[in-house]
């Protein structure tokens, strides 16, 4: 058994000597106090309006996209399109502000998939796609491809797509069968999290302004069962690391 001593409390109380290693540690702790007052970039934006991006169909054929001024990534999209010319039909929807494109690919029997092409500056974390015409949300598969289903005849000019990013996220960590929720958004509160035999019941204190919610548990990702303030997660879906993302 090691012989343990904790001098950190004394350092944080500024009661230690200011010489030697203790002095250096005290300075470091004071630096930390300054550092702690800086805002941490939490990666999840909070304004719902700012996390919905419209992608506009680009009528030009992909060869013409080469002249498009949005730079490297869209040029790459063009290359991909050229390479894929013989393998299926591709249409591009563009969001020039984000320097990003949504590539719609028509596969066999009008099976339609979509994939996002983004610049390093506008890397999307946990995106969903919404199709205005079908009013459906789509979750990407493990390779970040959105399967939009089958269409009789896909006419790109008739469709409008938006990309959504989460506005709020709750992470759950499991500790001896208990699920502990973590979140950084101060506007919302959890009224209760009940661990029942068959499910986890999460009750929010206020309705979160969201369009849809997704549960992520390990490799599993699907739409969550949200009813008003309540979210039910079946025991079968509970994992040691789990998140609920609200869009």
């Amino acid at each position, binding site marked *: 058994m090691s012989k343990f*001593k904790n001098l*950190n*409390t004394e*350092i944080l109380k500024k009661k230690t000597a200011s*010489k*030697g290693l203790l002095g250096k540690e005290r300075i470091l702790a004071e630096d930390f106090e300054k550092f702690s007052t800086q805002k941490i970039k939490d990666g999840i934006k909070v304004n719902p309006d700012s996390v919905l991006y419209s992608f506009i169909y680009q009528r030009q054929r992909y060869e013409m996209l080469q002249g498009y001024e949005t730079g490297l990534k869209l040029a790459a999209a063009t290359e991909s399109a050229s390479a894929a010319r013989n393998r299926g039909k591709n249409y591009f929807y563009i969001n020039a502000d984000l320097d990003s494109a949504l590539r719609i690919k028509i596969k066999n029997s009008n099976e339609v998939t979509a994939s996002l092409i983004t610049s390093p500056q506008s890397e999307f974390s946990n995106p969903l796609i919404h199709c205005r015409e079908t009013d459906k949300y789509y979750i990407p598969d493990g390779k970040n491809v959105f399967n939009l289903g089958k269409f009789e005849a896909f006419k790109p000019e008739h469709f409008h797509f938006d990309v959504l990013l989460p506005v709020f996220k709750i992470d759950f960590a*499991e500790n001896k069968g208990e699920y502990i929720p973590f979140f950084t958004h101060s506007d919302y*509160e959890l*009224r209760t999290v009940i661990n029942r035999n068959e499910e986890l019941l999460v009750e929010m204190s206020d309705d979160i302004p969201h369009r849809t919610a997704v549960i992520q548990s390990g490799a599993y990702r699907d739409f969550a069962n949200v009813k008003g303030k309540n979210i039910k997660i079946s025991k079968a879906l509970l994992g040691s690391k789990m998140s609920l993302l609200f869009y």
Partner: protein
Amino acid sequence: MDFTYGSYAEMSRFINECIKRIEKYIGFLSSKGKIFLPMDLTPYDAAIEVSSEIFTSDGNTLVKFKSFFDKLKEKPDTEDDYEAILKSFLFSVAKKNLVNIYKDSDPVTARIIRNLNLEIDRSGYFVTELFSDRFVHTEETDFSEKEYCGREELEKILSAAHSKVDFKNAKTFLSSLLNIVNEQDEYIKAVSFGDLVYVYKHSLIEKVESTQKSARQEEIETNIHYKFILEEFRQKFNTKLRKYFSKKNFSDNDQKCMYNVIDAFLKGITDGGQKRGASELTKEFFADGDFARNKNRVEYCIDMLLSELTTVFEKGK
């Protein structure tokens, strides 16, 4: 201070305040090069990984917090005292559970941390917790007497005493390293846990070197086999490096500099040449920019390289 809350919402608010404190602490240590966070983990994710066990509740009471504060001999008198004790508790838990953040993405580091922890506990070394890390030593030590040598100086001290360091396992490594540290008088006779992990990882270099030497002496096929492993390794590692460059917005020039650093570092290993420290490599290859920031990035990449190299080496054995 019974850590019993009027509602779940109130308790949950306290939990998230604690997570914010730990997140900032991990972010701070990471920015100072004291810990190397796996690339796919944010300080927030890491804070959750290291601390979830302390938020066990009974009703609306956080039992681990209650138990910790109940056992204190000197109860906090002021709000500042309470805040210092709370932070000390949270940071101590973070340091103790650091292994959790490496479990999935860097099993090599996780294993080194676990083995060193087990050995420190088993051998009954002194462990003193300061702000940035836990320090391991063999005798009672006055930490205000002298300064700490630091990672690079420690490596120099060990390098100078090369024949005395026994990297065979955690037990021999710790005892031989602490003996060497005890023999010098310039610095405090203690080593930070983070530096123990870093240096222990470096011990793999010795193994690769000796493997290379034996490969040269053995049949030519064996030599080719190891060259092939290292070439394949370099390609895989470049993929990981590119991901890191993209995440940290490296300029084209900085990318070139880092590739040169990695080349030089690997050359030192594979040719049995002299091991080169992060400062020296930063000075040589990053002529411009903030030295401390570049050195942190070099240390991070070398640490990542050592984890990957260990995995490859162990597979190739």
